[in-house]
């Protein structure tokens, strides 16, 4: 319990350094571009694959639960769409990214700590918290909401592919469902979630790497912690955001 507060305190204090300017802007800009590419393009395929299956499963499940009830078939399209936008796109994408991006960032920064790269930069006068972490935060805040948006669309497409060609229900029903009861507010909620999740994944993972000590075993543990803590915090914040944005 004591160490939880020590980590929390250090995490907060660390933020003061992250948001302090360091060095020439061109170097910073180059890093941001690299991060958007690494996080965004690097995760496109995996996000695509999981989203298509999640959409398919949602449609299949809804079909199973709703057949034999008096609820009309086109509701399935509506449910798939809103589940994707409100919950599944952001949460599933970010849980997968917590694994992929989180472990990557912790290992990259932790490796730099252990190989004295961070010390070398500090000696040169570089504010390493800012130079190493801020471009990743900005890169993540740009790339991850875009990935989530793509995930939502692919999700809906996955629902279509699983149901219409297989004859669960008609093209007309699915499209009618997609066009029913649309609320823009839910899209806003999706973006709020993706921004919050992105911030959690990037900072928690970088924190684990930045303060790593020891050798390879500690680096592996830090990488694992990055993933586990990111996942748990994503789900906790999912609930908190849901309460904040759907009540009152």
């Amino acid at each position, binding site marked *: 319990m004591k160490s939880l507060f020590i980590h929390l305190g250090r995490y907060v204090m660390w933020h003061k350094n992250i948001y302090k300017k360091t060095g020439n802007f061109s170097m910073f800009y180059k890093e941001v571009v690299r991060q958007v590419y690494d996080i965004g393009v690097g995760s496109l395929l995996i996000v695509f694959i999981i989203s298509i299956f999640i959409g398919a499963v949602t449609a299949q499940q809804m079909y199973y639960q709703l057949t034999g009830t008096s609820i009309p078939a086109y509701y399935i399209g509506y449910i798939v769409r809103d589940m994707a936008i409100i919950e599944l796109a952001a949460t599933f994408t970010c849980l997968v990214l917590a694994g992929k991006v989180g472990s990557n960032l912790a290992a990259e920064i932790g490796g730099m700590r252990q190989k004295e790269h961070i010390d*070398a930069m500090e000696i040169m006068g570089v504010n390493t918290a800012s130079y190493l972490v801020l471009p990743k935060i900005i890169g993540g805040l740009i790339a991850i909401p875009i990935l989530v948006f793509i995930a939502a669309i692919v999700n809906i497409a996955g629902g279509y592919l699983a149901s219409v060609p297989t004859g669960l229900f008609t093209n007309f029903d699915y499209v009618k469902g997609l066009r029913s009861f649309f609320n823009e507010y839910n899209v806003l909620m999706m973006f709020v979630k993706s921004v919050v999740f992105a911030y959690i994944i990037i900072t928690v993972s970088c924190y684990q790497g930045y303060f790593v000590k020891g050798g390879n075993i500690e680096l592996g543990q830090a990488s694992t912690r990055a993933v586990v803590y990111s996942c748990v915090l994503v789900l906790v914040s999912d609930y908190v955001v849901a309460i904040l944005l759907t009540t009152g």
Partner: protein
Amino acid sequence: MIRIENIHKSFDDVQVLKGMDFEFDAGKTNLIIGRSGAGKTVLLKILVGLFKPTDGKVWYDTRDFFDLSKEDLRALRMEVGMLFQGNALFDSMTVAENVRFPLDMFSKMTLKEKNHRVNECLERVQLNGSNDKYPSEISGGMQKRVGIARAIVYKPKYLFCDEPNSGLDPKTSITIDDLIKEITEADNITTVINTHDMNSVMEIGENICFLDKGKIVWKGNRHEVMTSENENLNSFIFASPFLQRLKAKAKK
């Protein structure tokens, strides 16, 4: 010149440095020697501000290192270069990009001026022609040279080297030592080197402090090493029977 006064350092409850006073001279290769685990790296990291001492002061000429304003500290950082034990070269950057990194980060030079300076430094360490290689593609000795080139790219007044010979063969070690000494003298740099290498002590030991159990137990230069009666120092430097005979001869 760098002067340390009464430097103490503890990690949690473990006292690693227990009160040290010494003066590192300008234009000289100053050595910190001692057995593995004696606290050499900790002392060096205190000198460059990576660790804060539990007690004591570090003076860079007239500047009290741990009492500088942010602006003064930033200015001082530009006067400091460091060569790390594992070189700390950035793997994703080429040799030239590594050396240029401090300039890219902070200088207002044009790319052409920066590249010119980078080539000057690479020539200085006899590494011209390797600009576009990656650190993993060159030998350990060459990596050291890149590390030196990067450390001097800002024309430092103070240079720190943590075990510059570790992992190198004796011949390469000596050329690296000579290179550091040559640069130190030519540019009147205050150079501080951590080492437990007997050759370095004899080659470039102009001003030596010997660390043992958290204290400086001997000070002197390489000539005084040969004649010293300090048991502790002798058992460290003249570890092998061969060297003990050498020392006995020198005394006569």
